């Protein structure tokens, strides 16, 4: 018989604890306010997870990890037809395109990341279908739930704190006028630099995340770090800023809306001659 309930009454952590302790086999279906997910378990271990219809797919996974180029992925997809991911993975391992250990690591990472993403769901419904495992032909791994629960809970607390600090991603950032930290001592990660390079009153945090392919959790974490270091400050949403800006803000044409870089006002900025003259005058004064 399926276990059903409401996430308000019985949270994700409790559900996973139950599955772990009872060493259950089956699939947990979750339906949140805006998202859906399902997690598969075999004898209490997490073996597969997918959210929002995004199944774990081998070629996009390898492409995202830089193990395959887009062209390689396309050729493999064409040649392998409708063969299940498990068979394609075996072929790639045998042909030396990817190491077995690397692939296992990527699959585990994907599954756990998906599982961590549902920890923040505190509304919606769940249904656990015992002995139902829709994983045929899919890439799976066996992951101990204790660690997932501990890490998920830790991330949940961190997520809650980040949400308090940065309630909206539709605000923009600007560099602090007087940074708290002596800038000579600042060490930034590559990811932080990626964010820094887009700090501009016209770019909402959400757009910076889209452009850098970062999740909400990742971008919040990085922005929080930069805020704490006093390097950046949150400012009004870009639309309001645009109204107050000196130059003409670059509008996003309908056909560009699918392209995040278009939204960044990237490539060739719209700049008026008067701004260049201002720059020239200021630099002459230096």
């Amino acid at each position, binding site marked *: 018989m399926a276990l059903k309930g409401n996430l308000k009454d019985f949270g994700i952590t409790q559900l996973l604890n139950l599955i772990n302790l009872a060493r259950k086999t089956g699939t947990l279906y979750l339906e949140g306010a805006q998202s859906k997910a399902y997690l598969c378990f075999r004898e209490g271990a997490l073996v597969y997870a997918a959210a929002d219809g995004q199944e774990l797919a081998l070629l996009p996974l390898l492409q995202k990890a*830089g193990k395959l180029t887009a062209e390689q992925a396309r050729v493999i997809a064409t040649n392998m037809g409708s063969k299940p991911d498990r068979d394609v993975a075996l072929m790639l391992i045998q042909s030396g395109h990817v190491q077995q250990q690397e692939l296992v690591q990527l699959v585990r990472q994907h599954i756990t990341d998906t599982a961590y993403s549902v920890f923040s769901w505190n509304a919606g419904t769940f249904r656990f279908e015992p002995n139902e495992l829709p994983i045929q032909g899919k890439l799976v791994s066996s992951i101990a739930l204790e660690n997932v629960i501990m890490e998920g809970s830790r991330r949940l607390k961190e997520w809650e704190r980040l949400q308090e600090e940065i309630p909206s991603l539709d605000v923009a950032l600007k560099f602090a006028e007087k940074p708290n930290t002596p800038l000579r001592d600042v060490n930034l990660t590559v990811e932080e630099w990626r964010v820094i390079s887009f700090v501009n009153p016209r770019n909402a945090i959400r757009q910076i995340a889209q452009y850098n392919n970062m999740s909400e959790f990742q971008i919040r974490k990085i922005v929080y770090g930069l805020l704490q270091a006093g*390097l950046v400050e949150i400012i009004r949403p870009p639309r309001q800023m645009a109204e107050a800006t*000196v130059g003409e803000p670059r509008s996003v044409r309908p056909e560009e809306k699918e392209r995040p870089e278009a939204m960044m006002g990237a490539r060739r900025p719209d700049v008026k*001659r008067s701004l260049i003259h*201002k720059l020239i005058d200021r630099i*002459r004064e230096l």
Partner: protein
Amino acid sequence: MQTLKIVVTGPFASGKTEFIQSVSEIDVVSTERKISSRAERIKDATTVAMDFGRITIDEELILYLFGTPGQRRFDFMWEILSEGMLGFVVMVDSTRPETFREAQRILDTFRAYSPVPYIVAANKQDIPDAWPADDLRIVLKIEPDVKVVPCVARDRESVKQVLLELLYSILEVMDQTEE
């Protein structure tokens, strides 16, 4: 508040950091760190270096100077940094001909990223062995309409001159576009 960006690029140790430092009103933020992304954790530790400086123009306008990492292995950062730039400066160490080929490669790469105006700064002109700017133009195959400006990155006046020449080039391009 509006911000504008100029990118300073060039081979490793060509003088990008000094260039930015000479005119920035803030300490140049630079970073050196061990790579820690998942893919790189299994490889040897390495160093990233990148800088940015700031010049406040007025209450509503700020110019940022972004220095790119010179090492080839960090060229993935170049395109990110080039987004939305007003123009770029290619720094060349005029005393190290062994870096000229790399300078040309970087120049070609940045030109492909964005059709914005650029300028070549022939750095270290205060050193006796420095190649003259005119010779660099020939070696680097710089087109006649692109300026190659002698430069000493430690000297603020010299850096100002490079930035001004870039801004003049930007104005010229604007004029041509308007015509």
